[in-house]
């Protein structure tokens, strides 16, 4: 029983830390900054290195 109680307490503390982290990360500021950019550049896209394979082929063409 002592082992089960210990395991329960360990997981409870671990998840408590994660919950505190999730609540402390302020995503409001991030959302505001993203909205600020997208308000004048309206058609936003995911910023990845290469838009498509065609672009990649061009870059690595020998």
């Amino acid at each position, binding site marked *: *029983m002592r*082992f*089960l109680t210990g*395991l329960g307490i360990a*997981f409870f503390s*671990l*998840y408590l830390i*994660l919950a505190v*982290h*999730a609540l402390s*990360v302020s*995503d409001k*500021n*991030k*959302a505001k*900054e*993203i*909205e600020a*950019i*997208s*308000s*004048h*550049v*309206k*058609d*936003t*896209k*995911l*910023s*990845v*290195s*290469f*838009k498509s394979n065609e*672009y990649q082929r*061009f*870059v*690595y063409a020998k």
Partner: protein
Amino acid sequence: MRSKNFVEYAILLLFKDKNDHLFSFLIFSFIVFILSSTLFISDSLQEDLLNSIKSQPEIVVENTRAGRAYAMHDGFIYDISKITGVSNVEGIVDGYHYFAQKRLWFHIIGDATLAKDEMIIGQGVKNAMAELYYNEEFHFFTEERMIRLKINKIAPKSTTIISNDAVYLHPNTARAVLGMEMDEYSKLYVSVPNPNEVGNVSLKIVEIYPSAKATTKEDAISAVRHLYYYKGGIFMILYVIALVSFFILLKNQISLVYGEKKKEIAILRSLGFCIKDIIALKFIQNTVVSVSAYLLGVAMAYIYVFMFNAPYLRNIFLGSELENSISFTPVIDINLLFLIFLFGVVPFLAFVILPAWKIAISDMSEAVKS
């Protein structure tokens, strides 16, 4: 309700055979960790992208010629603005500039709020430029000339999801960099105040210009939802294959172990343990193993993705060519975690308890003799 001593005995047995249980614990934790990490990343990216397309116009028009993106001129704006239901049409400059020294593409975006000599760059672009000592200004090499621009501002780190490869310029400067004429546009933003008319207007645009592509806001939202659709289709099949292979491995291992433990089960039976007790014993042991493995896998995935920003794994989602310092917003889909629990822990218990039950109902005198 089992007595406290019975539970303690089950835990004692668990420790006695810890090496056998450790294998399934580690493999199961790892599978839950990988599954949860992938889903945490895709959910987080999706959430931020959906936030970013809130102000997207009702329709975005792009033109093609010979299957490639092609510029539009003022005639397009005039024709589309004459369609009933359209309140405004705005021409946009947008394209890609090849940065040959680093073999990278920069996304050039026209932003009318900037001055002609102003330039805002994303974090990834800043790092790529800095590697070649472009710290104060940058030189765009075009077919005709070299355009020298001062780096005025860096886009905030929190916006790297949409700005990492972006260079924001005044539309006319962007045209000069992209080699476009003054009356040319890459895209048109079409405003339609009545949401019921959006579908009709987009059909009319394609009717007037068959080579054009009209993307409605709804299409853009569903594209984002399907960008990393790891909950369905081919990815679901991959998950199922991974889980089934794990369970086959687990079943083989358990059968092997239980073959050796036949004598132990037989002794317990002869001591007065009924089949129900044997199953309860194995159930308690394996519930501790599987639930702990599940909780550990999910917690590790959270720490890996939201605290350490998923090193290595994020490159699969965002590419590794342009350094991306993205920070993932914690988004947790409880339904999905419950689904992983349901498809992970329940079959795990079933695969372990079935062999134990099979042995418990067999002839015990034979087992004791062997």
